[in-house]
């Protein structure tokens, strides 16, 4: 049986606790993601989708409930431990790419490994391999402002893979791209999922994209309202098959 990577039970997230404007964003979320799964989380804006993503990504702690990420309890972790968890277990892919400016593609990919304390030569070696994987080896010396949106996102995906994380957490990864480049990025996720067995959590409001994944979790008003199987990867062009 596959290992459970994300195990959430009764996650509640409140803001402004104890104040008159106390706000409950997540109202008891139960969510399990198995190793090697490609799951999407969809919801309207204001549904609590982003808050859930922050908690999954160990950027934030739940107010109540239990969250085990690859067997590590996030509830009790301090700031430094959360940093380590993000560094080792999570690979972030953002809508706006968030590459570090004035820093080459190669150095950007090296960054998570630098924070992991890996030695310089090993870091560079691995970063090169990752950039080759996303077919960006030609541009590894380029600065982010010299790359197109699709290229930036591919570098960002290589960076997310740097420390071989337990999950890739992608927040609207195609949101800032046109449909063609968006397609390429989605194909890259499928490839990582199929070839390398990566666990991927895709957060989106695009139902069409969500349908490509194995499971679609719908959030509304801070609760999981629907969990259905997706229709899987759309038919691919012949040369990629």
């Amino acid at each position, binding site marked *: 049986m596959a290992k459970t990577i994300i195990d959430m039970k009764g996650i509640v997230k409140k803001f402004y606790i104890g104040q008159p404007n106390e706000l409950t964003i997540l109202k008891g979320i139960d969510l399990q993601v198995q190793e090697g799964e490609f799951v999407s989380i969809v919801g309207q804006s204001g549904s609590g989708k982003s808050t859930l993503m922050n908690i999954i990504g160990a950027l934030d702690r739940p107010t109540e409930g239990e969250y085990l990420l690859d067997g590590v309890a996030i509830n009790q972790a301090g700031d430094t431990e959360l940093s380590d968890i993000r560094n080792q277990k999570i690979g972030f892919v953002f809508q706006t790419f*968030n590459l570090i400016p004035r820093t080459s593609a190669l150095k950007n990919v090296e960054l998570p490994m*630098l924070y992991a304390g890996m030695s310089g030569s090993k870091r560079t070696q691995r970063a090169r391999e990752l950039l080759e994987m996303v077919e960006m080896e030609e541009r590894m010396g380029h600065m982010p402002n010299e790359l197109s949106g699709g290229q930036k996102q591919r570098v960002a995906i290589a960076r997310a893979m740097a420390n071989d994380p337990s999950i890739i957490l992608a927040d609207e990864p195609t949101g800032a791209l046109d449909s063609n480049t968006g397609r390429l990025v989605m194909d890259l996720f499928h490839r990582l999922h199929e070839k390398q067995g990566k666990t991927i959590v895709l957060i989106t409001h695009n139902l069409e994209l969500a349908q490509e994944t194995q499971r679609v979790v719908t959030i509304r008003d801070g609760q999981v309202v629907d969990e259905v199987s997706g229709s899987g990867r759309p038919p691919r062009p012949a040369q990629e098959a």
Partner: protein
Amino acid sequence: MTQIFENISLAISGLRANKMRALLTMLGIIIGISSVIGIVMVGDSLTNSMTSSLQEMGANNVQIGLQQRESENGQSYTVSIDADDYISDEMIEQFLSDYDGQVEAVSVSEGMGSGRAVDGHKYANVSVSGVNDGYQTANHLKMQQGRFIAERDLKGVKNVAVVSDKFCNNMFAQGESPLGQEIKVNIGKDLYTFTIIGVYQYEQNALMSMMGAAASEKDMSTDLYLPITTSWKLTGAVEGYYSITALTKQGTDARALASEFEDYFNRFYARNEDFSISAISLDSIIDQYSSMMGTVQIAIAVIAAISLLVGGIGVMNIMLVSVTERTREIGTRKALGAKNSAIRLQFIVESVIICLIGGIIGIALGMLMGYSGAALLGFPARPSVQAIVIAVGFSMLIGVFFGYYPANKAAKLDPIEALRYE
């Protein structure tokens, strides 16, 4: 360790991207450091040349002079000096025999003013002084020809003179012996005639040259010495000394002897209501001068510290701007697993690099200032290694101190807020 190197290269690339801003930020540090280095350099060279020229004049010299007593009610009023108030030859003779072991010579001099020796179209400017036989020893005059004023010249009130080699160059042809020649000297409205008995070697005194005596060979004024008795006779001055110089022997403590001499001479003035004797060694003048320069340097250090403080605040300001500008980057780094300490280190390194580069530019500029300042004053200057080390250390310290608050602010940013920052 690897993180520090990464941070250094990151900080430098960041500064390159914002050259103008980086330079303006550094300006306060540059001005502070360069003024310290420059002024310390000029001050050091000034002190060194002052000290060496004072020592040249004789660190073994003790000045013994008249000093007006303070009146009982504390009011000061000017008292005219009577003939019997002056230090007399008898006192000096007694003093010399009592301190035979400690005192080499006693030198006295009395200025008669500036004048000009004229011979046809030839001339030489002179500064005329009446001196005694001890003057040569106390002032380390080197004789080139002939002899200095001797006791018999003093006793005989002879119209003889000792002149400088420069004087001879102006007055006499090459190869012509000046000894025994008669010269006519105009002082004020009076014309005097003297016979040259000796020629001393003129030495440019650093102190004198600083006071602006940069005349040409032809117009420069050199000292012309007469027996002091002759000058008394010519000017009709009272025979006595307002101040004398005692040259103590090698190996004696001039400073200790000064106070002994003061007590010794004050015995002659025990019943004098208006005057007493004060004695001071050149050594202690040097000390006073050094301590004065020390005070000046402390004042400069304080001013520099203020300018560095202002510079540091400028650095802090820019670092705060930088943190705000890069909020998203900080959020991204945190999402990628940067610990708070790593973020803090990144910004402190950046701040230290700004201050260090500013410090290095400041040192270079300060040395330039120091060298040109010293060249302007005509003294050799050398950069003070100590000042440079302190300047570098201090600018780094400013970097850490003023970088800490912005860096800590960056480190404490909430990653979610930071990632969302527009």
